[in-house]
């Protein structure tokens, strides 16, 4: 029996179809202006790719932007918050996970779950760019290196610079001053990644992170931020086995499977 989850984000839309808890089809695309259209399109693409017919899917859960509307338009039987879906998705992938640190392009969330995968607590930062992917984008531009390089090059640093500010705008100025003084880009990059990890740490500390801690979102690809954060938390960070972008949709599909009678 097949179950589906649809997750509409601010930038991308994802759909996942599962059978017996295993992913049989998934799709990621850029969002359309209307979340209902995004849901229709991403589902259509998922089905086309896998040769599955819509009637074969027994239950669908929607999450993310416009999740209520997607349900009321008949595209899903139920809608659940993205926090719950993200949590359950990560928990299903690794039942040892109790904390998820998700760093997106515009925000950062830390989700705590109990041993049954139920949402316990969460904190979110969508007010300040420091500690989100946007921070690294600004810094990579200031340093004139790619986002990938920013993570890689700093691993070779022996003397990371100390940033004296927290605000993205002020740190950008600091970076420019370091460059003017001839400090090596490697050491500046290391300082940037450290400052980033410190902001994420400040958010994570508000919920007292417990093992296992899973790091998701695009910033998880930055090995330097990950290793700094591990050091600061003194906890090893685990990574998801699937594309971190589809964890929310996967969690929605798992919920659909539970509602559909099979768990």
């Amino acid at each position, binding site marked *: 029996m097949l179950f589906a989850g649809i997750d509409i984000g601010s930038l991308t839309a994802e759909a996942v179809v599962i059978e017996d808890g295993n992913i049989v089809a998934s799709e990621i695309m850029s969002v359309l202006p209307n979340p209902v259209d995004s849901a229709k399109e991403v589902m259509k693409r998922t089905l086309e790719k896998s040769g599955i017919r819509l009637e074969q899917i027994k239950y669908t859960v929607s999450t993310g932007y416009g999740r209520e509307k997607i349900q009321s338009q008949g595209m899903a039987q139920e809608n659940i918050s993205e926090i719950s879906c993200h949590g359950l998705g990560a928990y299903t992938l690794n039942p040892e996970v109790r904390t998820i640190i998700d760093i997106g392009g*515009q925000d950062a969330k830390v989700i705590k779950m109990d041993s049954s995968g139920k949402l316990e607590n969460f904190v979110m930062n969508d*007010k*300040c*760019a420091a500690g989100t992917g*946007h*921070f690294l984008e*600004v810094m990579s531009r200031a340093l004139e290196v790619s986002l990938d390089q920013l993570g890689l090059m700093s691993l070779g640093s022996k003397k990371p610079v100390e940033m004296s*500010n*927290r*605000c*993205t*705008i*002020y740190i950008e*100025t600091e970076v420019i*001053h370091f460059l*003017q*003084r001839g400090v090596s880009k490697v050491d500046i990059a290391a300082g940037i990644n450290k400052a980033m990890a410190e902001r994420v740490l400040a958010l994570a500390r508000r919920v007292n992170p417990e093992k296992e801690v899973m790091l998701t979102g695009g910033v998880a690809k930055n090995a330097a931020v990950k290793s700094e954060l591990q050091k600061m938390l003194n906890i090893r960070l685990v990574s998801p086995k699937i594309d971190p972008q589809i964890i929310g949709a996967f969690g929605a599909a798992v919920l659909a499977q539970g509602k559909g009678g099979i768990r």
Partner: protein
Amino acid sequence: MITMGCDIGSLFTKAVILNGDDLIASRIRKTTGNIADEMDGFLKALMLEAGIERSELRCLAGTGSGASLLKRADFIEDTINCISAASAFNIPEVQLAIDIGGQSITSVLLNEEGEVVNFMRNDKCAAGSGRFLEVMSDKLNVKIEDIDKVVSRAARPMEMSAQCGVFAESEVITHVNEGEDTADIIAGVCTSVANMVVAQGRRFAAADHYTITGGVARVNSIIKIIREKLNGTYHGFPHDPQLAAAFGAALLAQSELVRGWYGAERK
């Protein structure tokens, strides 16, 4: 007695020469990466403008986040004391001085003697700072000194939803791409700055008479919004508000001389 106050801020460096109570010369320039080496020239030009010799200058006081770069300073004073001195001297009834600098917003609560009773400073977040205004006006291609002119033709001021400077920058770019009028956008930016200042000022709600100093206070559109939202009686700083901290430093240098702490051994 001739004294000089020099305020090396994060964005601008300001200097003031006082002869007793009278401001006889002032100068403002950008703070660059090698400001330390350029200070001598800057101060010389100011003395030339004032028509005084180095030997006539009895005391030089430094302030601002870059004050330590002023190697010739006789003493360094915190900006909080400088702002309060300048405000209390120029506006005797003032109870609250709010300074909007390049990288900070500082509120200073004063008693009847003009002494600092309490203060609050936000230098952690760029929202509402001079740097914030600079980033936004850069994106809109409006010079800071032209903001008032541009805002005056705003028909429907926008409302900014982001407080963070980085997110607000993205928001401004989105508005530009959607074809919104520059005047309406910059009016929204001014409201955003004013809101941050008002939020801090309201922490000292008991203060009635207030003044606003710092570079951002030169933008009348922002002052206007603050006055609408912040209770109390506003008093404009009688000199260029960007000079307030430097003015205060020069004043404190005067009082140090009166107390005989400095300058006795100088020619």
